[in-house]
């Protein structure tokens, strides 16, 4: 019986001959137990580091302005203050351009039921600088991206139309309840970072969004 550990196992040997030695067992046990302990220790650490990646979009409805502030066919610049009570509210603030539309045809990229107002985010869809209103629509000071009055790209490096907010009327106030990204035809896409395509073959590079 004990001889089995001293003779090298022959090809197709018996079960006893294939048994591991004490040294092999201890090595495997050390690596195995150590590995399990390592994973148990590392998992919560990785979870804390990566948690925000899978936290989802924590958009909370935010006040845009009084409805009678907004004029037909003219953009008004508005600062949105979500989480206004938090000490870092000034980091979280967003800027939007709001326009009242006379008819449904005034906004070629509007979603159904969202034609009365156009609420465009000021985040450039090249790499996220703040765009400014111009005579022809919007321009970005960083790398020269240009958009028309519906936020559709007309020049420069941006890869898609400007993001938009879903608005809703609350008495005499306008509120933003969500933010979404658009493809080049105005179709709604999930909100994503600037620089990521929503139309054409390049959009296949971003099949998953956190």
């Amino acid at each position, binding site marked *: 019986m004990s001889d089995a550990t001293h003779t090298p196992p022959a090809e197709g040997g018996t079960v006893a001959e294939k048994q591991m030695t004490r040294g092999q067992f201890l090595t495997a046990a050390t690596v195995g137990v150590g590995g399990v302990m390592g994973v148990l220790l590392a998992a919560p650490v990785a979870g804390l580091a990566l948690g925000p*990646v899978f936290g989802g979009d*924590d958009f909370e409805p935010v006040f845009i302005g009084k409805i009678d502030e907004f004029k037909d066919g003219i953009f008004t610049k508005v600062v949105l203050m979500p989480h206004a009570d938090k000490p870092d509210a000034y*980091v979280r603030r967003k800027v939007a351009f709001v326009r009242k539309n006379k008819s449904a045809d005034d906004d070629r990229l509007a979603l159904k039921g969202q034609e009365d107002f156009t609420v465009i985010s000021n985040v450039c869809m090249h790499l*996220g600088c703040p765009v400014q209103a111009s005579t022809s629509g919007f321009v970005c000071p960083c790398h020269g991206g240009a958009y028309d009055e519906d936020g559709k790209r007309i020049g420069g490096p941006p890869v898609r139309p400007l993001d938009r907010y879903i608005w809703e009327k609350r008495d005499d106030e306008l509120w933003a309840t969500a933010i979404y990204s658009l493809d080049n035809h105005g179709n709604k896409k999930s*909100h994503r*970072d600037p620089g990521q395509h929503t139309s054409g073959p390049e959009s296949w590079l*971003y099949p998953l969004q956190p």
Partner: protein
Amino acid sequence: MAGLKEDLTHHGSKALDAVDERGGLVGFHKWFLFRNVPKGLSWLHTLGFCLLIVFVNQAVTGSILAMYYQPGADTAYESVQRIMFEFDFGWLVRGMHKWGASAMIVLMFLHMGASFMMGAYKYPRELTWISGVLIFAATLGMGLTGYLLVWDQRAFWASVVAINLNGTAPFLGPYISEFLRGGATYTGNILPRFYALHMLLIPGGLIGLIVLHMYLVTRLGVTPAPWKKNDPANDPEAWS
């Protein structure tokens, strides 16, 4: 007083022997520094050491700056202002850190270019080159994460652009940008996040990579310059 000098030499050498017997440090020191080098070295061969000096400068000045810097959305900018205008030599130490950062990037390109021209990436030094490329990436990561900490308008918007740039990487990009930002939107949490990356995570990896890089350089020796390759003095056989 001749006796004192002899005593000091005697005891000093005994102490050194004792340390060497226990730690092998003298042998290590000889292995590390008293090496044969090929004929025809030039200033280009000093760039790696320059980088090491700049890295030590960054590590020391950064550690001291960390005594005064406060990474919070409502404290960071003011604490940098205090470093600049209130504390003695704060402006100088911060300047050393800031300009050292630029110098490190410039020197890294020069060092990489010189190593490439010397053919120092070829057998048997492939691992030295690969570890150098990882050091390169980690150093760029230091530049990215350090830039935000100033927390002025330029720091913030440059970081926004850089994070979105990471977000455009295929497939994993959207996850990388969320990881850097610490969520879907920009909040005050981004400052301590970048601070931890800049102070702890990336430097930790960087130090390990630098040790590996220097071990490989010491083990494999310096590449002779291409125009000195056929010099009989550079025949490895002639060295031993």
